[in-house]
């Protein structure tokens, strides 16, 4: 009977395509929108992910997310270094500073100051130059996206693309000269500001005069040291907040989840996609069953059981669901691939496949149930009513 069910489904090409397209649309929306959402949310903690070497981040206890800088006194660095289980602890400055460009424009930059001696916390990938070049006077490393776009020199032609900043070019940070000695590849951040790396001491000279300028203390635990135990010890000894990298990412992620409208906006899109997809696919599938009611009646009159008819309808629903899901997910993947070099945030983990798969399954079950109920209640005597 499976063969008959499939032939019935595909016999009416228009309805068949209608159901598949409805499910494709639902699957696309339920995958693409969350993928963009996850992409945006992953940018909130991309800076933490880029700084891969330290095990623990130490900061002011009131810090709520990675860009919520509440500076510490430099002496806190030495206190952390003195705690047992700490292999090393390095300072990091992170702050938004205005850069004056060669054409006189100002651009806010995310300035990151690295420990002068070790340069720990530097950019993950150097495209041009070396990170050691930061030891040269007035040197900075800028990220490639910033260099190409916001920090770029104005185009000589009206409306043209800016000329990318390159090694040897200069800019001003708080009236102090900064020479570009390297171009780095960093993950895009949520605020999409250009990232400028320099040494900790130079960053302090760029920053406005303040009593406290230490943003984070980056800690490497000794081999075999339990990280949870060490974070607890740092907190108890210094009164500062200490998070593992994963905990700091979660803290940042949850801040954006709870304090921005992003989840609601994307959640609404996903929900609408689900509802519209369910409505289209459910209605079309139900209409398809209604259109075939006489055929189901004939099969019932000839001795087909309700259970067999139910299996036939489920098979039809599973087939259109699988095709629609595959097309939707495929289109999402194509979309993500096409957008990989653009500013658009896109993250497509395997869990998202399960999420949209569950959504499409729910739609198919819903569509199948309303159809099955109609067929089960069907009186086979309908076959003699013309």
């Amino acid at each position, binding site marked *: 009977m499976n063969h008959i069910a499939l*032939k019935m489904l595909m016999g009416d090409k228009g309805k068949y395509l209608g159901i598949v397209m409805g499910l494709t649309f639902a699957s696309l929306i339920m995958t693409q929108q969350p993928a963009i959402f996850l992409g945006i949310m992953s940018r909130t903690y991309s800076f933490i992910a880029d700084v891969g070497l330290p095990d623990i981040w130490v900061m002011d206890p009131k810090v709520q997310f990675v860009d919520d800088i509440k500076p510490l006194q430099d002496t806190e660095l030495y206190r952390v270094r003195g705690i047992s289980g700490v292999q090393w602890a390095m300072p990091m400055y992170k702050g938004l500073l205005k850069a004056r460009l060669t054409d006189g424009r100002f651009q806010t930059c995310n300035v990151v100051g690295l420990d002068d001696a070790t340069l720990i916390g530097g950019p993950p990938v150097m495209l041009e130059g070396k990170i050691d070049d930061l030891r040269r006077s007035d040197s900075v490393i800028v990220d490639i996206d910033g260099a190409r776009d916001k920090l770029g020199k104005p185009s000589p032609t009206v409306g043209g693309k800016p000329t990318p900043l390159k090694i040897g070019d200069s800019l001003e940070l708080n009236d102090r000269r900064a020479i570009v000695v390297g171009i780095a590849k960093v993950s895009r951040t949520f605020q999409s500001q250009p990232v400028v790396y320099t040494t900790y001491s130079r960053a302090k000279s760029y920053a406005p005069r303040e009593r406290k300028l230490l943003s984070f203390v980056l800690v490497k635990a000794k081999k075999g040291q339990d990280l949870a135990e060490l974070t607890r010890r740092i907190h108890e000894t210094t009164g500062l907040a200490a998070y593992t990298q994963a905990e700091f990412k979660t803290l940042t992620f949850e801040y954006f989840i709870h304090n921005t409208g992003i989840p609601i906006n994307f959640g609404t899109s996903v929900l609408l996609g689900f509802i519209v997809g369910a409505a289209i696919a459910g209605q079309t599938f139900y209409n398809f069953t209604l259109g075939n009611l*006489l055929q189901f009646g004939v099969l019932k009159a000839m*001795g087909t059981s309700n259970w067999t008819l139910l299996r036939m309808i489920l098979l039809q629903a599973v087939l259109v669901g699988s095709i629609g899901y595959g097309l939707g997910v495929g289109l999402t993947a194509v979309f993500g691939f096409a957008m990989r070099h653009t500013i658009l945030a896109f993250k497509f983990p395997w869990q998202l496949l399960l999420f949209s798969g569950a959504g499409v399954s729910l739609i198919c079950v819903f569509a199948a149930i309303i159809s099955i109920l109609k067929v089960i209640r069907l009186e*086979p005597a309908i076959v*003699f009513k013309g």
Partner: protein
Amino acid sequence: MNPAVRCQNVVKTYDTGGQKVTALNGINLDIAMGELMMLVGPSGCGKTTLISVIAGILDQDDGSCEVFGEDLLNMRSRDKLNFRARNIGFVFQAFNLLPSLNAAENVSVPLIINGMKRIEAERKAITILEHVGLGERWQSLPSQLSGGQQQRVAIARALVHSPRLIVCDEPTSALDHETGRNVMALLKDVALHKDRTLVIVTHDARIFDFADRIAEMDDGHIIKVKSTK
């Protein structure tokens, strides 16, 4: 010898919007094995209700209807399905072929319902299609066949699993005179034999001469049963 079908005091009432309509009002009818019985009468007289009860696709409210000695009303649902699948063939006014299946696939449906493998069922279906003169058209979809050809496919479908009872609802009313008579001739020729009974509901007076007996119905009653012999 027991009749193929025995209806005794069969009553069926429909509830249409709070109003009771008696479709069958104490029907008594015996149909013998090997007989071609026609049920005739004006629209709404209960013909279709009666063949629905005889075919086991509608339960009567009162009375008994035995088919080959089995009381379908008291049969379990599963047993009734199996009984229908094995013993009854259907021919409909509008053919009711599955439009997306070709002729052989349509004819093979009752065999598949009875558990036969598809390939084997289709092979047997092609053989039956040859008997009804459509051996060459087994791959055609219903939409590619004329009305008469579709009805011949429907007859092949009704016969393929060798049922003992074939019920036909207005099998010729969608066909022109000559095609209708050809279909009836075919039906009588290939379907009727001493181990099989045909019950045909019809308005079509042009085919009455194919019947062994004709039961005239009116207002839920059988008012006359006459032999054509």
